[in-house]
């Protein structure tokens, strides 16, 4: 019963952070800031949802498998974000900070 309630709290919090990530994806102004928004879904939402799911198992093999999923997601998602950001940068996309500086230079 306590586990059930705890699991519900974790799952709801995880869902909240997922939605936060999705909304940030729309609200943030450029590519690089959007990657930050998506990384909320990658990190804390995954963590909370998988902890919530583990609390619902009988702590056997299924819990171990969920733990493996968590480990692999936490390993791979920053790598994927980095690959995206790096290729965007090498493709010539400027960050907002840099375009701001360019505009300042033109104004002077």
């Amino acid at each position, binding site marked *: 019963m306590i586990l059930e309630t705890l699991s519900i709290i974790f799952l709801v919090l995880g869902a909240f*952070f997922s939605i*936060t*990530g999705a*909304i*940030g994806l729309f*609200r*943030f*102004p*450029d590519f*690089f*800031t959007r*990657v*930050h*928004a998506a*990384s*909320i879904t*990658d*990190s*804390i939402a995954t*963590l909370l949802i998988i902890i919530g799911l583990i609390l619902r198992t009988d702590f056997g*093999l299924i819990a*171990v*498998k969920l733990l*493996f999923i968590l480990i692999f997601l*936490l*390993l791979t*998602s*920053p*790598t994927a*974000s*980095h690959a995206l*950001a*790096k290729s*965007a*940068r*090498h493709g010539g996309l400027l*960050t*907002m*900070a*840099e375009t701001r500086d360019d505009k300042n230079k033109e104004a002077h």
Partner: protein
Amino acid sequence: MDKKTIIYLSVWAIVLSGFWLLLSGFLKPLLLAFGLISVTLVLILLHRMDNTDTEQQKLALNLSFLRYIVWLLGQVVSSSLSVTRLVWGNKKELRPAIGKLPIDKIPQKSRVLYANSITLTPGTLSIDIDDKYVTIHALNDESIESLKHGDMVDKVYDEYKGAQ
């Protein structure tokens, strides 16, 4: 094959067999045989690859690594909360910044850990890495400053020393 390689390969054999057993959960002889075959195949591959690149990858599962992971998860939670505030809050608070952090003092093997830790914590993103610097994009200037003066570098370094 010398003694060191045999120990190294047997550690991998134990870890891989444990991983296979936890994933499958079946104890039928046929399936166990399949598991044995796959573990052997991976070990052969591993051995051949180590002969090619001469960089053995030891498993770094020790206490200092676990301590680092726990600390990192704490960082992930706290910085997630601040990014969440930015998402729901006023757009004007958003001041994306870019900065370079020196990494030439960090041992080569720990650089990936460092860059990945930076990316994993929401609000900071490593966008480029070379021999001397890692380029960071952050949602505000403070996070770059806190990375510059913060203790993530020290923690990564401690983890590396603990693994030796």
